[in-house]
């Protein structure tokens, strides 16, 4: 061992151990945080492509002829599918550019409609994703977003059709608020049970989901049924004054709700990171013992967090009713409540991340419809891709080893959850 070498080792150690102020924190933290989700999305799409290839009949047929042909067919299949996905989700670039050059307003709108429709699809995801993210940040696993969404939708619908004669600037917000309140109530119950009796919120929110489903079924086929629907479980159409306005004539559905979602996301970010309430929620969520030590009331925090989370979920239901569906039927949600758990995780439970992840999901969903039409690839492939992305986000070690990323030195921004039967 030469002296020099030993000194070098010590120098390095000194550099790393002793005065980290000069060495760490040189990289932008955001890139580090976004790297895993971005790579997960890329990997998800690649694996999706493989699935498209191996589930395609024509690829097998081509491989039967020759290997080269097999590969070229596989690539063209994947190409067609992803092209359809892209044009379905964003739009046809050529058409968009032409439309921009021309002065046909209708053509312009239609060229950009796929993109706008993706945003429409994203809107309920944003609300629902925020609901789950807020829960996670507060140490609660709100698995009842779907039920809260249904109750929120029902409340918004009821206020939307039953009250007449109000001006739009009162009626619409009122209906929206009613949705939020309904969801909040549905979140409050399991929150209260958790805080007062220690009943686990996962169990109780699942139970509340079933109550919500059956309750709305009864409402829609009973007290809230549309006159003359012949027993179909569907509500009356809401008043014009309760509608969240769409910006363009039909069939373009892009509506104000998207911007309301962004505003709410901003509000949640502000609440969580800029106010004492938010610090309160996050402290209880991250370390309930330290929260108690610091003199916080975990009871209050849990109830508040569940109610707020429920309110956000209720908004997801309300916005779908008031902006898109305009009446309530049982097929209201395509699993927003459950996808939202994935969204919150992919978005690292941060409002900005949730918005981005929601737009991704909305876009994929929207594009998948066209992909199914053009290349007869089932829409379920998008579910698979979403699941793969989620899996990689949840198990970042896989992504790190695939792409040879170094483990971040800083403690990862983890999601802290009180385990089953743990803290209560």
């Amino acid at each position, binding site marked *: *061992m030469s002296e020099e*070498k*030993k000194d070098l*080792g*010590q120098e*390095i*150690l*000194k550099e*790393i*151990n*002793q*005065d*980290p*102020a000069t060495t*760490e*924190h040189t990289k932008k933290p955001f890139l580090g945080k976004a790297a895993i989700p971005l790579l997960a999305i890329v990997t998800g799409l690649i694996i999706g492509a493989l699935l498209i290839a191996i589930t395609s009949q024509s690829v097998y047929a081509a491989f039967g002829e020759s290997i080269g042909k097999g590969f070229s067919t596989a690539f063209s299949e994947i190409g067609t599918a992803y092209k359809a996905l892209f044009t379905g989700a964003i739009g046809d670039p050529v058409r968009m550019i032409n439309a921009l050059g021309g002065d046909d307003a209708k053509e312009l709108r239609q060229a950009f409609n796929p993109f706008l429709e993706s945003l429409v699809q994203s809107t309920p995801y944003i609300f629902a994703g925020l609901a789950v993210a807020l829960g996670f940040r507060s140490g609660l696993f709100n698995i009842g977003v779907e039920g809260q969404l249904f109750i929120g939708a029902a409340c918004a619908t009821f206020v939307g059709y039953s009250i007449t004669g109000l001006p739009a600037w009162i009626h619409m917000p009122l209906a929206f608020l009613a949705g939020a309140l309904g969801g909040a109530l549905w979140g409050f119950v399991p929150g209260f049970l958790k805080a007062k009796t220690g009943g686990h919120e996962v169990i109780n929110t699942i139970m509340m989901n079933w109550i919500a489903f059956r309750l709305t079924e009864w409402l829609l086929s009973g007290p809230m049924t549309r006159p003359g629907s012949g027993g179909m479980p569907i509500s009356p159409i809401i008043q014009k004054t309760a509608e969240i306005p769409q910006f363009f004539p039909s069939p373009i559905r892009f509506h104000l709700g998207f911007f309301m979602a962004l505003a709410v996301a901003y509000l949640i970010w502000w609440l969580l990171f*800029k*106010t*004492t*309430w*938010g*610090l*309160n929620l*996050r*402290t209880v969520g*991250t*370390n309930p*013992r*330290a*929260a*108690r*030590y*610091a*003199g*916080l009331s975990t009871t209050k925090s849990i109830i508040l967090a569940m109610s707020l989370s429920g309110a956000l979920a209720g908004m997801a239901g309300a916005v779908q009713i008031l902006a898109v569906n305009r009446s309530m039927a049982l097929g209201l949600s395509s699993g927003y409540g459950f996808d939202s758990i994935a969204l919150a995780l992919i978005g690292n439970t941060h409002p900005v991340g949730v918005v981005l992840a929601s737009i991704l999901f909305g876009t994929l969903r929207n594009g998948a419809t066209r992909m199914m039409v053009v290349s007869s690839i089932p829409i379920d492939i998008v579910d698979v891709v979403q699941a793969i992305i989620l899996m990689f986000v949840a198990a970042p070690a896989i992504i790190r080893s695939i792409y040879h990323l*170094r*483990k971040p*030195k*800083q*403690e990862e*921004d*983890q999601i*802290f959850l009180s385990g089953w039967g743990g803290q209560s």
Partner: protein
Amino acid sequence: MTPILELKGITKRFPGVLANDHIDLSLNKGEILALLGENGAGKSTLMNILYGLYQPDEGEILVNDEKVTINSPTDAINQGIGMVHQHFMLIPVFTVTENVMLGNEAVKQAGFLDRKKAADRILEISNHYNLEVNPNDYIRDLPVGVQQRVEIIKLLYREAEILIFDEPTAVLTPQEADELFKIMRSLVEQGKSIIFITHKLREVMDIADRVMVIRRGAMVGETTPAQADKKSLAAMMVGRAVDLEVDRTESTPGELVCSVENLTVADKFQNIVVDDISLEVYSGEIVGIAGVQGNGQTELVNAITGLQKSLSGKISLLGEDVTKFSPRQITELGSAHVPEDRQADGLVLPFSVAENLVLCTYYKEPFAKGVLLQYPVILKNAEKLIEDFDIRTPNAFTPVGSLSGGNQQKVIIARELSRPIKFLVASQPTRGLDVGSIEYIHKRIVQKRDEGCGVLLVSPELDEIMELSDRIAVMYRGKIIAVVPNKGISKEYIGLLMAGVVPEEPIQFDETAVVEATF
């Protein structure tokens, strides 16, 4: 004489850290080698390499002059290397015999366990080394000191020649520690060799034949207790001169700050763990609560700080009855609490240093206006405290979880002591910290006392209690069995009290014990 074990140029790198830097070490047959170093110096990494849990990046291991590769603990034990872990690896509901057999079972013909044979071996080993262990006892019934001896028997049963002890005294009373040292002596007398990992200087002086000091991954020196003293060892360990003794003047107790009357507290299983305790703390004095861990200290502290409800009794703080107060009400009266488990209770690890520094006061002016957090003020506060309390952190935004243990504790100390407080409850304030941090935190606590704060110090480290306290209360099985002024009493005396024995001779004057009571 060739050493029984030799490490040559052992180097281990973790991403971004050089944990062991070309370490050379040799262990002779029949000696006790102390491996001294602060937390995080690389002692554990080195021993884990020896025990087969890590592979070295460079360097070689020689046992009896033969090069060996150790890929697992099984390899290690096959080479005659065994380890007594700090936290015992025993199954409470099994007997000693069953625990010792586990993984190396003696069997009869048809594959049945041969408990008799194993028990006989254990008894033989126990008698041979004076371990006094009954093979048929259940682990759960045994005191900690005996459990540790079971761990030692496990190794001897597997015919280990080299025994590694990883901070073995952390869980023991002083008496049990003395017992252990006797056993270690008898082991080496019978030809075993021992590596003894510690950061306690006194133990090194007491028991080691040779000392090697590790600092920041490198071997910085080798000496013998005869040639060194505690001061020089501490300096080697920390890399600078260290004040081992806190400058502590005579206390000047003032008015009553905290009084506990007939307090009884139960744990969550409804066992009485604090049993009818009365205690008083005056301003300007430090009252130390000595006692082996788990004798009710935790619950006593929880009750005083409002974290746990008491069954009966009364707690008064600054003249107010706070028995039914919430933690926040108690804090707002002017009480501070350095909790026993800093990571579980005292900090929110993923939060920034700045946020942790206002964990108890974030809702008040000037840190918040209404519900709006004033981050500029919070940051300014953080920067000041980071400076004042010498918290080594990249910046105020760094998550507390990525700081070292010593700096995490400094964050808590800074937060609690920077408030205008009249009463401080410090529960194991230096647990697991290195010499430098201990020195610093002790000074801060004494300084707070001198400012007129009443301090209740709870620690299972008798040295710490004797070093800092003006009065010492000894807790044993939920009761305070003695309160004595810390003047001219011996460590042995307190040690006996900690074991529940009330000595007939009340106080034996032993000046050396008081002066040398450090670390």
